[in-house]
């Protein structure tokens, strides 16, 4: 069974936000209206964390793209009362929107604030295939989050099965990795020793958020800076 993981090279990443938009477009993530966005309800599955540190002129601005980390021991699935979020055998932490009752316990439990919530019914044009028809449109009151574009995995699997071959490295990539102009996001099967992700995840530059929490995130960051 493959285990999907992501490596983000922060030394290559410039923080251009292309991943955030690619993700929003791919996954039909709604746009919050201005007042809502300003009050902290803008929805990003792939968020860009920006912090400025250090005193002038030795300023350092860290820009870190943050998807869901798809932890191997996810704290969010543990607390879901209805099993609307769970970790599938391939290590994807999935969100089943129609099971979700909107208690937001998973959001409170996620140490990385990776989940977003539909505070209002998002506006879609009735019946029109707005955006990506491969991804469902969510409704008011459910939690959603980065899915590693699992719908792409499903279609890749279908093709691979039809052609009777294993999934190749780089065949299944989420929208963010695909659109990154800096090629900073690499995606693949971390259990496959031939894969780029496997190689990169063993780099001396690697770090993960929340490693001390023991949740085993599957998003690895590469950075020459000692602390990211």
């Amino acid at each position: 069974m493959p285990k999907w993981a992501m490596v983000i090279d922060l030394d290559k990443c410039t923080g251009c936000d292309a991943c955030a938009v690619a993700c929003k477009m791919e996954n039909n993530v709604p746009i919050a209206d201005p007042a809502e966005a300003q009050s902290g309800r803008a929805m990003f599955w792939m968020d860009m964390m920006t912090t400025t540190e250090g005193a002038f002129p030795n300023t350092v601005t860290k820009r870190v793209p943050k998807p869901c980390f798809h932890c191997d021991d996810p704290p969010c699935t543990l607390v879901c009362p209805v099993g609307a979020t769970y970790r599938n055998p391939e290590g994807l932490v999935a969100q089943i929107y129609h099971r979700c009752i909107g208690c937001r316990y998973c959001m409170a439990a996620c140490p990385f604030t990776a989940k977003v919530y539909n505070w209002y019914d998002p506006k879609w044009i009735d019946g029109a295939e707005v955006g990506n028809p491969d991804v469902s449109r969510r409704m008011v009151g459910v939690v959603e989050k980065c899915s590693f574009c699992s719908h792409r995995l499903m279609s890749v699997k279908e093709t691979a099965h039809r052609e009777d071959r294993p999934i190749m490295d780089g065949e299944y990539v989420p929208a963010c990795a695909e659109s990154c102009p800096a090629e900073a996001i690499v995606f693949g099967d971390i259990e496959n020793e031939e894969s780029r992700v496997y190689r990169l995840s063993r780099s001396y530059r690697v770090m993960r958020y929340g490693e001390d929490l023991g949740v085993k995130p599957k998003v690895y960051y590469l950075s020459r800076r000692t602390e990211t």
Partner: protein
Amino acid sequence: MEIKRREFLRLFGGLSGSFLFVGCGLDDVLDIPQSMIEQARRGPGIETWQNTICGLCPAGCGTRVRLIDDIPVSVKGNPVYPINRGGMCPLGLNALHSLYHPDRLKGPVQRKGTPDHATWESISWENALSQIAERLVELRVAGKPHQVAFLGHEENGLLKQHFARFMQAYGSPNYFQFAPSQNTVTPYSLLQGHLTLPAYDFLNARLIVSFGSNFLEEGSSPVYYTKVYSHHEEQQTRYVQIESRHSLTASNADQWIPIRPGTYGALALGLSYVLIREELYDREFVRSKTFGFEDRVDSSGVRHVGFKNMVLGNYYPERVEELTGVPSPVILQLGRELGNAHPALVVGDQGAIDNTNGTFSTMAIHSLNALLGNFEREGGIFFVDDPPFSRFEPVQSDVVARDGLKQSPIGISEGDVYPFTRFSIEAFTKNVLSETPYPLSVLFIRGGNPLFESLNRSKLAEALKKIPLVVSFDSILSETSEFAHLILPEHHFMERWDAISAVDSIPFAHVGIQHPVVQPFHDTKQVGDVLIGLAQQVGGVVGKAFPFSNYEEELKFAMEGVYKSGTGAIAAGGAGSLWIQYLQQRGWQIGRYSSFDEFWDRLVGQGGWWNPIRKRKNWDVVFKTPSKKFEFFSQTLKKALDNLTNQSGGESGTAQNYERVLNRLNISARGDTVFLPHHEPIPHEPDMLFHLVTFRVLPVRDGQGAALPMMQELFGHSANRHWESWAEIHPETAAINNISDGDWVLISSVVGSLRLRAKITEGIMPSVVAIPFGLGHTSLGRYAKGHGVNPNTIMRNLYDQLNGKPALQATKVKIARAT
């Protein structure tokens, strides 16, 4: 990050907070034609991909459009297109929303009433075109074709040629491009004699020192530079960013050197001092390929000071530190680094050039490249060939056209104001208002949003009102097109044919083909076709200038030239750098297409053509100056000033006349220094303590992205502001003025003031306030209107002395806490 106690105290005030019963979410985010909705409901869900070129900014990235049952559902980068290689910027990825934008005009409209109380009525294409054609014919009959002007924006490649051809055939000298980048070429032409921007070989440089050029965000093709940057992470190229603000580029650079706005040139000269003093410059190049480095005695026996002694005498580190605020040890260190890293590349743009002394500053910056001998070599600077389009038949002008073309252009001022401008919006405004040298009868505006970007908005609006017929090609009603009489909406880039090429500073020749990915949604037309239609209605020589039934045909004809040239190749996978090296060694060949049709089909299918192989140029091609060398001492400038002195009457060359010309141009230097790269002081305003600096962010760029809701949301995401502008202020400044993060502040200049939220950040000089440009629209559709502020509205009407480029960093402001 800090938040306000006040906001929390509201808690027990309790009744505040957003409380909306309606208006949750955005209404009608998109406007999708009903037929498509039906199609989506019934279709089998067959997926297809089409390659085209993104048209949301002039960078021209290759895109792949994903269609399900012929409905575009997403856009991503074209992995084989040489500029972006599969990468995309946020704006480009959001292209579909511009296609489905609910405020796109559904067809041509005509204005009834004044611009302030306008109603827009639909009008048929035939009617609209015949109205315009009638006027054009009338003007030609009256012998006044020069009273027609065409204001383009950043079009390049074939379309630019198309517009120019139309205007030439019609007989008007007034084809201008209103793009802020238009005049950036002046310093390079003064030093090198070229009227195109140089291209930089970033890929092979080991050290890149950028003077205010925020190329990752504001460059001509941010995606290309981002690709290069990430490639550099592997080969460990060092980036040094010199800028007043900690921009995206600065934050990704290895070193950020904050500098006072308007003093970039002084720092560059300070670095020259170090290079010269420590003899780290390329002596062989300087000796053989430059002019005016050493002192010299001219033919008439007058002694002229050279660049070397001028620099050594004036720009010693302590003085430069005083001018720029950059500590002298940093100057020394950077100077030595420049001299020791091979190849080291110096680029200057936005920050450096956007000031009243921009031309001289950029000359000083570019001189560093000469000192380093960075011409025609790896990791250096060169000029890219134009793509080998087919040659068009020369335009057969008639008498009317010839007379019209002899008239002086209306976008350029007479005499000693902006002697090197290609187009000055300020001069244009003045000329139109004063009807000198002639009144303007018809104005076409295509692309951009001059009124939004101009520093002198009210005057420009008046000028537009004065023109009897203004025709705009905007697809969404904008600030500028509100002043148009007719709007002939153009196709969305996914609906039209076009060729995108010669993007500034991309170091290889390329052509990207835009082709219709979808049937046009609305009753719109490609501008090229509109002009062909007009030309044919005008008839005569004008009609004959376009022997094509439509623009697509013209495009095909032009590309035949590319096919026949036998150079370059259609963009394809696997064209990595190794492969290019291999081809370079063995000679580049196509030979894979049996016919033009095959070439054409593949070209349209793959998205474009490129030629990474550049022929080495002779030095007399590289330097087109009078001396055929790099001129530290610009003879072109000298000649121009001499001419001005002669024109201004009196005895030629007298000191008194010179003095007057220099004063008029606001040049404070005297003697030979005037013609050498030097630092000119910027306007001083004693009671205003802060420099106002603006910047552009990727999602919105020149303001057109503000029409898209997702880009509005992303606009200030990094500053935790959405759909809103903010002012970046240094903590020290904030403390003095008792401002904390998120407070409302009032930024006032002598022109006006803006109220916006403060963002306290260590990433800015204490003497600088930075406001992002792009929001503050009063038009441009429902999503752009009424969000944020436009910093250009409080800028003083200041321009570069030599080329009339708006001085976007020259205004000084004061800050106060707003209530």
